[in-house]
């Protein structure tokens, strides 16, 4: 089977497993969306009536396959809580989460690559040791705490950036960026640590290769050896980690969106879980799962771009 077809089959299997598992997990959670909607004092008859209206009185698997059928035609259903179409809710929130994750990755890479390059110039040197300690320090810090620290530092103390909230790009690019700087720093300042350590380690291995020795022997300056010869072959693990870290980034985004009051997909999901809005949770998780698998699929493609040997092997198989 061609490589691309294999990837697609894998995508379908992953999605089926993820959606079925989510359906089961949310179903076994205690609580009931009918009570959430009708309030604490609803009569049992009213609760039963609403459950029937929402179709919640049918067996779980029947509901799941119903949902799956509609989802395959692009209809993720309507929120039990407020009747909003789930696809529309995701589309409305997606730009915020995407911007947050892209900016966080830019922050992470913007710190990780220069720090890794500077560290390997003298492994075990002062800069290397300081950067390693800083990386472990940031890695150990929970993002909800880092977020609050950044708010107090940059909003309250220095009065430079807004503490919370989101401004859409349609209301001005700078205003938009301003509202996203602290949230993306919160995610990026934790994310860079792993990227830096991985890249540093790969760079150290690459720097021992013969072609680096050759480049040095040719008299190329150290920065050119690092940037032009060592960086590219050292970035495979980095790219793999970037792809896999999307999962962690989405998890982090749920918390960061909550702290900074950003109207993103993470907050939509959290609200859905609190309200036992199964259909909203299901649609959002399915969407995130597709996103995760597609991004990792693109990461695999990127190997081929970076290394012709990978391309060759893939085309042969």
């Amino acid at each position: 089977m061609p490589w691309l077809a294999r990837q697609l089959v894998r995508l379908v299997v992953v999605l089926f497993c993820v959606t079925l598992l989510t359906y089961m997990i949310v179903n076994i959670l205690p609580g009931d969306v009918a009570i959430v909607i009708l309030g604490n004092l609803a009569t049992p008859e009213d609760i039963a009536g609403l459950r029937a209206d929402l179709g919640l009185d049918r067996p779980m698997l029947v509901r799941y396959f119903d949902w799956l059928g509609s989802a395959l035609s692009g209809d993720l259903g309507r929120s039990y809580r407020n009747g909003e179409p789930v696809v529309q809710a995701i589309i409305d929130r997606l730009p915020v989460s995407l911007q947050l994750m892209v900016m966080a990755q830019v922050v992470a890479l913007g710190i990780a690559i220069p720090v890794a390059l500077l560290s390997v110039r003298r492994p075990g040197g002062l800069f290397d040791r300081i950067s390693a300690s800083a990386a472990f320090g940031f890695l150990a810090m929970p993002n909800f705490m880092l977020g609050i620290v950044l708010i107090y530092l940059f909003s309250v103390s220095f009065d430079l950036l807004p503490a919370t909230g989101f401004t859409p790009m349609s209301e001005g690019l700078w205003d938009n960026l301003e509202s996203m700087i602290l949230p993306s720093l919160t995610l990026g300042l934790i994310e860079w640590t792993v990227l830096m350590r991985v890249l540093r380690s790969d760079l150290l291995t690459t720097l021992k290769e013969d072609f680096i020795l050759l480049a040095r022997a040719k008299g190329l300056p150290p920065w050119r050896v690092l940037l032009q010869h060592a960086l590219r072959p050292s970035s495979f693990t980095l790219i793999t980690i970037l792809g896999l870290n999307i999962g962690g980034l989405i998890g982090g985004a749920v918390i960061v969106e909550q702290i900074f009051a950003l109207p993103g997909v993470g907050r939509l999901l959290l609200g859905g879980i609190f309200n036992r809005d199964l259909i909203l949770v299901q649609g959002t998780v399915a969407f995130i799962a597709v996103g995760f698998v597609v991004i990792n699929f693109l990461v695999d493609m990127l190997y081929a771009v970076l290394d012709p040997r990978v391309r060759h092997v893939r085309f042969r198989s």
Partner: protein
Amino acid sequence: MALFSRRFGLVAALAVGFSAPALAQAPVRGGALTIGVESDFEGFDPIRAGVYSNSTVTAASLFYETLMRLDDKGNLLPALALSMTPNEDGSVWTAKIRPNVKWHDGTPFTAQAVADHFNRLLDPANRFAGRAYLAIEKVEAPDDLTAVFKMRGPNAALPRTLAQPTVTTLIIPVKIAQEKGADYNRNPVGTGPFVFKEWRAADRLVAERNPNYWDKDKPYLDRVTVRPLPDSDARYASLVKGDVQVIWEDRAENIVKAKKDKNLRVLQWVGSGALVIPLNTQREPLNDKRVRQAVSMALNRKANAAVLTQGLRPVHDDPYGPSSGIECKDTGALKYDPEAARKLIADYGKPVKLTMTVTATPRGREGAQVFQADMKKAGIDVEIKPVDQTQLVKEALTRDFQVTGWRIIDLADVDPQMFANFHSKSPINFSGYNNAEVDRLLLVGRTSLDENKRKAAYCDLIKILNDDAVWLWSGSNIDFAITRANVRGIPALRGGAVQVESAWFAK
């Protein structure tokens, strides 16, 4: 008989922060105010939303209004109704509707709209859970300016009940809601001081000054934005930074900090109702009065509240609260006495083991842990059972619990809650309490048009409830808002809602 002549009690409302010097200055027109609330809004159609959180009431009271209003002292004031007058026994109330009021789309507001609103909530087909509290049979509109409330029996509490903004009492245009269908929930139309402009889910709701508002001087502000800011530290930081000018707050650390900050003002409201610990009188061993009394006497309510809320939450010996206007000289409360509690348990003669069902939240667990520690001193073992909020509600309503945590919400009149919680025939009486004298007193409280008689009935009632140790009162309903120092004119935070119709910025 005009209603205003016999307000129910003089209310000693605690309204710290609504200071006299602020009122001495005349209100200034203009400005845009942003309010930070805890959660996003359920929507603005009571049938679709089902319940309104205090965040939603804050937003909804920008564009919706009630028939009557309450000032900070608890006096009734006219709003969409000019007056409400009962018949001889209080079984029929007639509301005179304010003329020349218009909905925001320009159509006239009439008595028929009032009737449509309440009849829609009362219709069982619409499954509006709040109807359990409404003692209304139906509402009729004989002419455009008269709405007649036919009650299920004599009822003294109606005008006050209708005066506090809630999902039930904020009047919506049913005709417009039906025309707009599902969209109405996100695009509300009202008669209120502000006109709905925009709601970006989880981000902000924007409302602008209603230039055609019936109260010509108001509102003072040009624009109000309500932003859901779920993280309390980030919400407080937004206020300190000045991104928002008012926040609803419940985190003791932030309130204590704000009280020391000269750029901020803390508004505090101790409402009616209380945080409570219901005991299931139908279940062993709590069906024995000695065990319930032992639990009551072993619980150090005041010390616990001081520890759990840094001393911010007052503890009373009744669930009425200062804003209800009911002050009982003798509540018959059992005093904290672990030694006496131990003797009662010894007298009972069997080991006592209880399970306390609480919400699986830090607040729920902390409350249960101090309860557990207190009970241990009296020789009572307590197992803590943390569950989801909806599971707790289910267990409470099906009486499938021994001890739990609950709240009697802050309402302008105590009747709806007291009747629902303690009358033997009430479906919400989940302690399974059955006492003929209590039933009689609850009926006096509900039906008597003599305020002194009502007050006396509620004081007699509390003595019985305290002696029988049915529910334990663990703390008052207290709400806080913090504002920038130049924000003026925010009234009492009834039900935790921040209302800004009269708000303005001091220069």
